[in-house]
């Protein structure tokens, strides 16, 4: 099993930390993992993206041009990464602020209205965990028991009291994701 994933959005949406938590969880379960942020000038100007690879085998290239899954959280990221999804792959987007929806027919497309839900519930800080939950619903690459273990490792001890809230957000996300187009 190898899952090659890109997560992209605005800085501040927790893109990098979402990827980090995912690799911590997967590593706890024994998978090989890689987390590779775009660094440098790309970080400036408000966009952030991170490549995440989870595999049962030794991971080769840290730099990918095609992905099994793309999670895009703003229009720029959707525009940039829709074409980078492998045929038959999966695209997940949050409709908040999206004016042009994805159009490809050779991939699975899902939407998750996590921004709206998190704002409504007043828990914007764990918005990214809702998205992660939606993703894990589609791609259960980490079993439930290791998610909490991964969070323990990924978060500094002073934030461990927030783990229940994170777990809850993941569960909410699982119920929130909906298919737009499936093969």
């Amino acid at each position: 099993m190898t899952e090659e994933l890109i997560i992209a959005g605005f800085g501040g949406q927790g893109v990098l930390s979402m990827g980090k938590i995912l690799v911590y969880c997967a590593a706890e379960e024994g998978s090989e993992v890689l987390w590779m942020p775009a660094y440098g000038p790309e970080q400036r100007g408000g966009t952030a993206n991170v490549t995440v690879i989870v595999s049962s085998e030794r991971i080769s290239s840290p730099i990918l041009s095609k992905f099994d899954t793309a999670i895009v959280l703003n229009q720029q990221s959707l525009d940039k990464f829709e074409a980078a999804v492998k045929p038959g792959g999966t695209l997940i987007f949050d409709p908040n602020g999206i004016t042009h929806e994805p159009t490809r027919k050779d991939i699975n497309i899902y939407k998750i209205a996590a921004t709206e839900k998190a704002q409504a519930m007043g828990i914007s800080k764990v918005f990214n965990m809702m998205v992660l939950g939606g993703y894990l619903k589609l791609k259960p690459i980490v079993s439930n028991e290791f998610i909490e273990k991964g969070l323990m490792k990924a978060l500094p001890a002073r934030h461990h009291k927030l783990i229940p809230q994170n777990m809850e957000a993941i569960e909410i996300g699982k119920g929130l994701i909906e298919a737009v187009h499936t093969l």
Partner: protein
Amino acid sequence: MAKEMKLMKGNEAIARAMIASGTDGYFGYPITPQSEVMETLMSEQPWETTGMVVLQAESELASINMVYGGAATGKKVATSSSSPGISLMQEGLTYLAGAEVPCLIMNAMRGGPGLGTIQPAQSDYFQSVKGGGHGDYQLYTIAPASVQEMYDFVFDAWDIAFKYRIPVLILTDGAIGQCMEKCYVREYVPRWTEEERRQNAPWGCWGKPATRGHNIVTSLELESSRQEQFNLKLQAKYREMEAKEVKFEALNCDDADYVFVAYGTSSRIAMKAMQLGREKGLKIGVFRLITLFPFPKNEIAELAKKVKGMLCVEMSAGQMIEDVKLAAQCSIPIEHFGRFGGIIPTSEEVLEALEKQIIK
């Protein structure tokens, strides 16, 4: 006992390995994309635990000369930088080589020339293995391709550095430095005691006891016949390293018709290109250089007898390929494929290059 697994970035792994391997001192100057090395050290405060000294210097020129000064006392001293800073350090490196002072330098290569870019590159190969500074000298140059190797090679570096009295260069790039992977960390190796320092570095400037003459650490010899003798001694040391210290990894090379030759980040891209090629039925292998000096000449010569062609994959305009061609004596088609200036090639591009330039 089971080793503990942690997730960390390559730059962080270098810093943590320095602390864990009993390094006595680190002197550095901030430069992207490796500033996390010093940042990690400063936040870990090893001076409170192992007693390791960490100091931010006023320039790379100062930091490499601090390495020289500290390492010449027989202690394990390290620095890290990125291409423009490493260029500035070349003066210190040739003095370190000329004075045979063991030490550790890490270069997270970025695109050049000049100030260039901060994205990953591999265009400092010539600088690293063909001298860089003036005079006939070599650095033991080792190229990690994963976070785990970033960590492990620091431990290995100290063994080689002191065994051969040679500066060790860990040649990596921003991609390995910035990516986070699993890393199995080791038990701490305590810093050398005073006794151990004196035993392991009898040549060091640690204060002349009545029992020996004064130790002088210098690269100066005004008598050219003696300087020639010294050069011959250095060359003999380098030949010995070529015989004993070559490291490489051959992946799927046994049945391969074609191989990618690469190191560091490029070798991982090549691994993926190999997988893509094998899915198409092409018998492709990857020959990954681990030591760049000593260069695996004999192994590449042997490989050239078995395969139909080689593609050198480098994030440069073509540097390592010169050594590959020399080793293979141009007996088979050997071509270069590279992106540079901070652009990382994709595995698809690399496979396509093999098909177009070699398989045809």
